Each structure stands twice: as C-alpha cells, then as structure tokens.
C-alpha cells in the first residue's frame, strides 16, 4: 500500500489533495463523501459583511476562466457561529481562509476565527487592500512581512500565507512570509486578467477585470511553487490549474507538499476523489513507497543555479 499522507508542519493530511478557497463549500457534500479529502478549505471570510462584485462574475477564456466574485461575505461572526460548526461532522482538518483591508482588521478576524475546530488559518493576502492603495499585501515583501507578523502575534494556529502571481518578486515575498511567521505557503491565487465581448464592446466581467484560474494558470503557478520551495523551508502547497493526476505530480515534483484544486471542480465535481485514487495508482505504478519520496524530487541539478531565481522571461 502506497503511503499518501503528508504533514504540513503540525497539520496532518491523510492525502495531499484539498480544495482551493472559494471553489468549495459544504454544498459539495451533496456529491461525494467530503471525508475523503486531505483537508477542507473555506471561502475567504472578511471581518464585516460584504456584498461582492456586480454580475457577470465569471467568464470563459480559451480553456480557462476569469472570476471577479469580490468575496461576498456574511462577516466573521456569522462565519464562526454558522459555518464552522457545519464542519464538525467531518474528519479532515478545517482550514479557514481570511482576508481584510488593513493589518488591524486582519488581526482582528484572525483572532476571531482562532477557535476550536479550526486546524489552520489561510491568510489570503492576494486581495486589493486599502492601506496599500489597492495593492495586495502579497505583491510586495515589505507588506507581506508586516501583515504576517501582525497575525502571528494574535494566534497560535498555523498560518498559511496565500501568495499572488501579480508580482515580480515571488521568492522575496515567499521569504518575507516565512520571516513573518507563516507555517506554510499556498501558491497561488488568481492572476489579474480581462476579457471583452467584441459584440457589445463591454468587459465580460461586471468588475472589468478579474482573476485567471484553470489550466492557463498552471505553468505560472507551478513556476511560483518551484521558486517558493527553493526559497523557504516551510511547506509549499501548490495551487493553480490542477485538473489531472499529472498536474498533481508535477507540483509535487516541483516541491509542493500538497495541492489545492479549484476550477477543475466546477466542470468535474468528482475530480478531487478521483485525483486521490489516481495519485495512489500513479505512485504504485512508478514504484514509490510514499508520496514524500516524490515531493521536491525535480531533477534540476543540471541547470545553473543562477537561473533558478530568474524573474523574467525569455
């Protein structure tokens, strides 16, 4: 029997497959047994109620999608009261994703969701915030460090920092998150994009721009996961465009200790349980005893070290 359990610091997962924030909810329990998953990750919750962005909130682009949902939220109190208890009946660790506009608010919600039943807090620092004139904390090392330090002070739960691809400084941001006290990195959120309807000449999203996710994001997020795994000593969780077992394996080889699956669940709601079985089968066929032997096994020794942190192409 192949061992597919992984440890992300103190958080133990019976397999490395979990959903990505915002693409999962307890509603998926209508389709399959959610106890199969490595972990559960909630939609990002904000301190106060938020209505979200105008519709249309999603659109298709060549084999992938854009979204500008805008984090509608019923607020932290509602979340702690109504949502966290729903997950009591499930066995996988519960990861709660939070976001806020300022470091103070961020700390406040972080404290608020540090309650029994929560295994770790995913810190969504990839959203525009008002303190930094609309830039996300995770776009810069300095702001990443500051917000992570702020959160580290107010909770004992593991903190997973979720990075953004909207930056040219991924390794620096990764190191800043680690210095600030992150216990793991989630790499990554969506990439700012746009689509226009040529008939109406209107942007296809009500919010003009939105985040790219799905297969088109994979080579970008995989590169980031690889860069992060080289840059930090804390575990990296790969996220972006995963739809097949080869995608999962690619992230693990690059150095991710686990992965999150988002968009693929929309077109194939059974994808996560299937990936778990396929990963087991793949490892068996390739004669791995444990998934841990695959993690970080990329054969990059022949390439010059200097290019590893190259930040631009070609």
């Amino acid at each position, binding site marked *: 029997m192949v061992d597919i359990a992984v440890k992300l610091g103190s958080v133990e997962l019976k397999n490395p497959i979990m959903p990505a924030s915002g693409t999962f909810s307890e509603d998926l*329990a209508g389709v*399959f*047994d959610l106890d199969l998953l490595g972990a559960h990750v909630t939609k990002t919750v904000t301190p106060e109620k938020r209505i979200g962005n105008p519709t249309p909130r999603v659109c298709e682009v060549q*084999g992938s999608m854009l979204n500008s*949902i805008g984090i509608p939220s019923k607020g932290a109190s509602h979340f702690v009261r109504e949502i966290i208890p729903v997950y009591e009946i499930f066995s996988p660790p519960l990861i709660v994703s939070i976001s806020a506009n300022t470091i103070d608010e961020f700390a406040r919600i972080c404290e608020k969701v540090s309650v029994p039943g929560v295994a770790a807090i995913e810190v969504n620092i990839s959203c525009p915030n008002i303190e930094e004139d609309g830039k996300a904390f995770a776009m810069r090392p300095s702001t990443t460090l500051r917000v992570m330090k702020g959160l580290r002070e107010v909770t004992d739960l593991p903190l997973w920092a979720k990075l953004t691809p909207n930056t040219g400084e991924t390794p620096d941001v990764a190191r800043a998150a680690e210095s600030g006290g992150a216990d793991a990195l989630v790499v990554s959120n969506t990439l700012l994009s746009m689509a226009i309807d040529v008939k109406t000449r209107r942007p296809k999203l009500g919010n003009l721009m939105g985040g790219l996710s799905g297969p088109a994001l994979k080579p970008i997020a995989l590169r980031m996961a690889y860069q992060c795994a080289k840059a930090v000593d804390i575990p990296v969780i790969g996220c972006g465009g995963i739809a097949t077992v080869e995608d999962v394996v690619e992230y693990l080889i690059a150095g991710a200790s686990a992965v999150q699956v988002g968009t693929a669940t*929309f*077109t194939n709601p059974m994808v996560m349980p299937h990936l778990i079985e396929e990963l087991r089968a793949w490892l068996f066929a390739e004669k791995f005893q444990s998934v841990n032997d695959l993690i970080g096994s990329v054969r990059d020794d022949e390439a010059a070290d200097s290019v590893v942190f190259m930040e631009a192409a070609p």
Partner: protein
Amino acid sequence: MEHSLTNATARVPAKSRLKPDTFPIHDVTCTVKSNEQINGEYYLLILSAPSEILDCRPGQFFHLLCPSKGGGNPFFRRPMSIYGYFPASGELHFLYKVVGEGTRAMAQLETGEGLKVLGPLGTGFTIQDGWQNLLVVARGVGLATLTPLAQEALQRGLNLTAICSARSPEMLMSVDRFRELGANVILVTDSEGSSGVENLERMIEAQIAQSGIDAFYTCGSNRLLKLLQRLGAQHGIPGEIALEQQMACGIGMCQCCVRSLRRGGKIIHERVCKEGPVFDLQEAMEW
C-alpha cells in the same frame, strides 16, 4: 411556499447524507437517444438516464458538460432546465435554444453519444396543499422550465392553465406536451397581436373572476414578471418565477450566480443554482 419540496441539497447536509448511496447530486454520463431540431432555434434532447438521477422536481435543472464539437470548446458546464423526467422509461428531456458555443456544441450531439450531466440541481417550484387552480404564463425557453409543472399538476389532480407566448405560431413549442398533460392551453403570439400585456391582463383577470387562480408560475420575460407581480399584489395571489444567471459550479460553491431580490425591505443576493432557480414572484427584480 413550504410543502412537499424535499430538496436535500438546499440545507446543510446531515451526517447521514454522507453515506455513498444517499448523495442527492449525481454526475453521470447519459446516452443520447435523440437530439432533434424542432423548429428554427429549438432542439429537443432526449437522454437515456439512470433512475437515480430522475428523482426530480419541476423547476430543477441539470448542469451539462457540453462536448468540444462544432469548432467550439466550451469550458463551463451549461445549466438546462429539466423539460421532462420519466423514471419509468428512464428518460430525461431538455428543450434548448442554440445561442452560443455550448448550445451549438449540444446541437451536434448524435444518437448514441454520451453526455455528462450533473444533477438534479436547485430548488424547484412549490405547489401548496389545497391549491386547485394553477396558472402558468411563459415565453421562449421558459416554456421548457414550466412544462414539468403540468406533469405534477396532472399527478396531483389539479387544474393548470398555460398561457404560452411566442413571436409567431411556428415558434410555439411544448404546446402539445402541455395538452398531453391535461393543461388548458392558451396560445398568444406577437404576429397575431395577441401577446400584448393588455390582452394577457384581460385573460388572466377573466380567469381569476371565473374559476379563481391559486398561484402564478412564470419564467423568462420581464414584461410577464411585471404583469404578474401587479396582478398578484392586487388579488393576493402568490407566485413563483424561475430566474437565470450564468453559472460556474452549479451547486452553490462559487457565488457567481447571484441575483438581487427584494426581501424584508432590503435588497439581498441569492444563488440561482441553490436557493433558486425558482424564487418568490414578488421578491424578483426586473433585469
């Protein structure tokens, strides 16, 4: 608006729900029995479907994984109302209009091919105990959504009148189907000048005066929504409307499919795929 509707997925799942044989939402590959154009724009797709997915409610829908056919490569699934569900014969029917990439691909499906469908999804129409006279007013693909109500009314022995509106008589679908199901069908068309709001209002008022109407059901037209909201308010007749919105997940996770509703003096957002597609008529807002 209570009763019968046992839409399991609309509530937080209880532990018992997690046993493999009780998942209410199924993702299965059905086989195309037939897929025929029934007039200029509309196609009727008949799938051979396993019985476990045919425990449906009128107003519910499936989320269809359209094939990469006809040059297109639709990424999302496409939501389609259940036009008919027949556990006895193992059939699932969809009536659809070709509008874009996904429906164009659907129109290319041939007998014997597979099609992945996810469902049944969403919260359907309610028929309260004691109601006797139901009025359906629909136009366009809305007719597809409302047809299963006639099936339910027939089963329950209720009277159902269907006012079917279209641009021209050739465009009217599902009229035969409504008749088969014992509905009292009234056709109105733009080309004959009978589909105007004044004419509809007169007809509906007459029906209220004559036999009474216990509930309105509609779908698909702003004009009809406004008319029925007004008549409903005047006469205290409840009603429901099925709304549309673009969907990604179809099962309540992504929050992309919200519509604004008036409720308790405020404007709130609800998910068409989960709390909907059927909403209270008076809560619905024009679009």
